């Protein structure tokens, strides 16, 4: 009891017991450790091994696509497209993901059949997200301003210089399923 009282006393008025400089310095150091630790843990949840520890089937689908294997050796991993790169948006998405962790714990989608049955809904969530933010996660790498239409195929440059340039359409409107297998597309506009 006496010990707890003593500790509480130190916490209540630390500068009585320790020098001000020491307090500032230790605060600074622990700040670095905690902030660094927090960010490292956050980065780990953005890594390929972390995602694929559960989403192995999706990882296999990704492997045949252009975002995984290509001539220039640039690769988009799960978080490149599914997690915002901007810090505040990233935190918001990570908080949303806590609901998905709950679904994982109670086993909402724990079989391939359940996943296939829900696939369209899940895909729609991502299409809506990308439509709403004007395909921000695509544009983190693919900048419209930097596109060279002369090296694009005719079909590509035709569409990019009209529908995309005018802002009437965004990447996800045409490029659904660019890195995944598509669900049943019955009734989806453009399909």
């Amino acid at each position: 009891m006496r010990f707890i009282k003593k500790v509480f006393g130190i916490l209540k008025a630390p500068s009585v017991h320790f020098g001000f400089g020491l307090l500032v310095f230790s605060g600074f150091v622990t700040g670095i450790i905690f902030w660094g630790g927090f960010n490292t843990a956050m980065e780990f949840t953005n890594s390929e091994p972390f995602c694929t520890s559960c989403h192995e089937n999706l990882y296999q689908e990704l492997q045949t696509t252009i975002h995984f294997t290509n001539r220039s050796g640039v690769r988009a991993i799960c978080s490149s497209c599914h997690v915002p790169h901007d810090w505040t948006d990233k935190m918001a998405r990570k908080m949303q993901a806590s609901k998905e962790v709950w679904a994982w714990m109670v086993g909402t989608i724990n079989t391939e059949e359940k996943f296939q049955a829900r696939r369209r809904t899940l895909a729609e969530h991502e299409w809506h997200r990308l439509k709403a933010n004007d395909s921000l996660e695509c544009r983190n790498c693919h900048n419209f301003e930097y596109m060279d239409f002369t090296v694009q195929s005719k079909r590509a440059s035709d569409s990019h210089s009209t529908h995309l340039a005018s802002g009437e359409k965004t990447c996800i409107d045409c490029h659904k399923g660019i890195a995944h297998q598509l669900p049943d597309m019955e009734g989806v506009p453009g399909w």
Partner: protein
Amino acid sequence: MKNCKRLLFVLFILSAFQVTAEPINPILKSEINEEVAAPPIGKTLNTDLKQKRNYPMQPPLIPHQTRDYQVNIKVNKCMSCHSRSRTEESQAPMVSVTHFMDRDGNFLAEISPRRYFCEQCHVTQSDVKPVVENTFVDIDSMLKKTGKE
């Protein structure tokens, strides 16, 4: 016994005329202890230019790449441009009317299930030299030739 001898004789004569078929694959031409580089994989042509058909009924060739095009029970990626309702926006050629017919000649609302898998007949082309010489002659050249003779 006599027949058997005759057969052996015929086989002996034939073996003298034995022709070894030239393997098409260059890897097969090499000796067993030789390591031969595989021929480079041709690039899929992506010109968007229609190619001539070699005969009127030939399924048109695909003049663009079709990497990762999903054609299965859930979705047909080709149809997102080539279906009747999509051609206005895509400006792609519509699938031919024959594709709407079932095998009894009835016209259906959508393409017939037997025509669903586009790449069974329509194929992309690669920028490669033919491995074996092709002696196909189209009908125009044939008519021209016979007219001369």
